């Protein structure tokens, strides 16, 4: 579905991604784990068209995406839930969700998806009119995910959805991710919480200083000694 070949990104003279190749297949949950500064967010921003690529190819559903802008990438069906949620704090919950459907014109479909987002996140339904900036961290994460779902993505990119949340909420968010995936949306998940991410991932890649150093199924990586030492705390 998503195929990245030898992707490089530079920030000035610093090379943040050094020839990354990875693949996400239809209906999968793929996890991308790695320490701070490994290039995980850079990779997602490159996929979403927020960053210029200095080399390599991105292909989505057989179409070349490397040179496309952020708008066309959303149109093609890739939506990102960015790190730190990046909801619009001065807009209401409902307006944030409408922003998610920005490129859609099918009013009836938007209404239907709005209802299903409210069903999936009942706490958002209770707070429709509330300003998004007044929500708790967990609610903001749900809003960011609901907002992304409003674009009806085929591939959902999630950047650190567990950041700053209590263990209980992290569990809830992860089971929602599994549920979204079960309903047919492919997921590429970036996480520092490697244990949780490998727990739900079909496959995973480990990124270190801009390169993929390991890949395998979620279970394989979770069992690997190197991974245990480096990312799972033992």
């Amino acid at each position, binding site marked *: 579905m998503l195929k990245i070949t030898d992707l490089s990104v530079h920030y000035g003279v610093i090379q943040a991604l050094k020839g990354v190749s990875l693949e996400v297949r239809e209906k999968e949950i793929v996890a991308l784990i790695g320490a701070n500064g490994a290039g995980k967010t850079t990779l997602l921003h490159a996929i*979403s*068209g*927020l960053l210029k690529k200095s080399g390599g190819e991105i292909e989505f559903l057989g179409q070349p995406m490397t040179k496309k802008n*952020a*708008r066309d990438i*959303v*149109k093609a069906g890739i*939506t*990102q839930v*960015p790190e730190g949620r*990046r*909801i*619009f*704090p*001065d*807009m209401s919950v409902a*307006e944030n969700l*409408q*922003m*998610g459907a*920005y*490129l859609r014109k099918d009013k009836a479909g938007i209404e239907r998806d709005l209802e299903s987002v409210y069903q999936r996140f009942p706490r958002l339904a209770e707070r429709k009119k509330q300003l998004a900036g007044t929500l708790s961290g967990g609610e903001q994460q749900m809003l960011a995910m609901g*907002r992304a779902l409003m*674009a009806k993505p085929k591939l959902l990119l999630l950047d650190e959805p567990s950041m700053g949340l209590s263990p209980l909420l992290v569990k809830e968010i992860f089971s929602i991710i599994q549920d979204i995936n079960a309903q047919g949306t492919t997921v590429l998940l970036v996480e520092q919480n490697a244990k949780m991410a490998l727990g739900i991932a079909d496959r995973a890649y480990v990124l270190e200083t801009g390169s993929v150093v390991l890949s395998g199924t979620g279970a394989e990586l979770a069992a690997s000694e190197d991974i245990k030492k480096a990312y799972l705390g033992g």
Partner: protein
Amino acid sequence: MTQFLQQLINGLSLGSIYALIALGYTMVYGIIKLINFAHGDIYMLGAYIGFICTAQLGMGFFSALITAMALCALIGVVIERIAYKPLRNATRITALITAIGVSYFLEASTQKVMGTGVKTFPQVLANQKIMLGGVMITTQQIAIFVITIVLMLLLQYIVRKTKVGRAMRAVSVDADAARLMGVNVDMTISYTFAIGSALAGAAGVLVGLYYNSINPLMGMLPGVKAFIAAVFGGIGIIPGAMFGGFFIGIVETLVSGYGSSLYKDAVVYIILIIILVVKPAGLLGKNVKEKV
């Protein structure tokens, strides 16, 4: 009391003009964090376009108003594309200096084309005096006030209720997050310039009508005062600019009415200094805390 009410009425007219200009300052600042010092000159161009439409083309007031707004919107968009867009990622001071350059360019071009002298703006709207218990209101003052309120309501509708308005608000808080929603950021910035410039153009026509005379440098002082009004209300905040504009206009007329018109400008600057010392974010501004 009569005198006070009279000054208040006069202040509302002047304040309407300041408020319309201040809105453009605040909207542009809100979306690209640029103090567009050429904005006062857009207002001047609005006055000249209104003058050409009425005095030379014989158009009526409302068609002149609409034409001036449309052309100013276009000019605003073109200026942004040519002068500011290439500097989107440059330091803020670079863009600011460019804005001052654009301001001089517009003033000098107008002087070249239209002459440096004062032009008399024709009386295209009936100006009857209405006496209300010793207070005199002219129909022009009523027109200025009503048009301003209508434009403000329209603006609020666009910003609050339409897709373009939502995109504008989204870009102004987080351009990258807006991009992730599929918002065309460049287009949204153009819309912002178009709307802000159209409002300034309207103010230009209204002021021509009110004071009867226009000149190529007429945008400088009202531009600065509208900027102060925007800062006073909280720059980047639309209701703040509306309130600030009316406030500065009323203060200015009250000072001229009761004290001396010699001090009316000084008082406005003093207000700026006070607000910067006491509440730098402006009256309606929030002190922004960075969340980590």
